[in-house]
């Protein structure tokens, strides 16, 4: 009961634990994978704008697996991210259809055009 009440305020504790676990695994990667994985993670914080915990945790898990795999295989980091790391990171983030802060604005724009269309009596 108490746990439920607290989670209503703080978000799921289970998710927080998972997220922390993934962070620790990122930090445990050998260099230079650790550096690149953390740089990607940092970029997601700015770009991703993912607001729901489930999506964030799934995304984090996939990120960790990608880099653990690369480190295990010894794949050069450039072979993973390609020539445009920003494009790569954004494509990666866009795979997650979770709730993003921009979604509200998207539906606003769509509604504005719908309303305008109606006013023209299509």
């Amino acid at each position, binding site marked *: 009961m108490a746990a439920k009440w607290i989670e209503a305020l703080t978000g799921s504790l289970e998710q927080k634990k998972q997220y922390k676990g993934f962070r620790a695994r990122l930090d445990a990667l050998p260099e230079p994978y650790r550096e690149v994985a953390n740089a990607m993670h940092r970029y997601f914080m700015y770009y991703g704008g993912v607001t729901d915990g489930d999506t964030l945790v*799934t995304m984090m898990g*996939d990120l960790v*697996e*990608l880099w*653990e*795999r*690369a*480190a*295990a*295989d010894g*794949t050069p980091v450039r*072979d*993973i*991210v*390609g*020539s445009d790391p920003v494009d*790569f990171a954004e*494509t*990666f983030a*866009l*795979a*997650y*259809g979770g709730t993003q802060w921009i979604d509200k604005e998207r539906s606003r724009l769509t509604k504005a055009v719908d309303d305008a269309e109606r006013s023209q009596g299509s």
Partner: protein
Amino acid sequence: MGKQETEMLKGILEGVVLGVLSTRAAYGYEITAWLRDQGFSDIAEGTVYALLVRVEQRGLVDVEKVPSEKGPPRKVYTLNAQGHEYLTEFWRTWSFLTDRLEKLRTAQTDAAEDGVEEGEK
């Protein structure tokens, strides 16, 4: 790979990867290696990984985790019924586009030839 090729490939890579998965189950690196063999030499492994993550999120593939000798288990992807449906639609769209573009190219070539003939008069 040129900028144009990269841009064009972006739109169709999903169909290509699902096409590969319709013939057999595979994990990310196998698909990347196959694409490189087919001449897509600049494909980044991560691009394919991100794409697989995306089709997984959209429920087009089934995933099985298979233990590997080192590192985390490998995710082996199989095309499911929904994926097959999506792929059929992809090929239909592809046929439509290539057909239209081929017509456009023929028309353009004909016009250019007409232009040359008129110039010769």
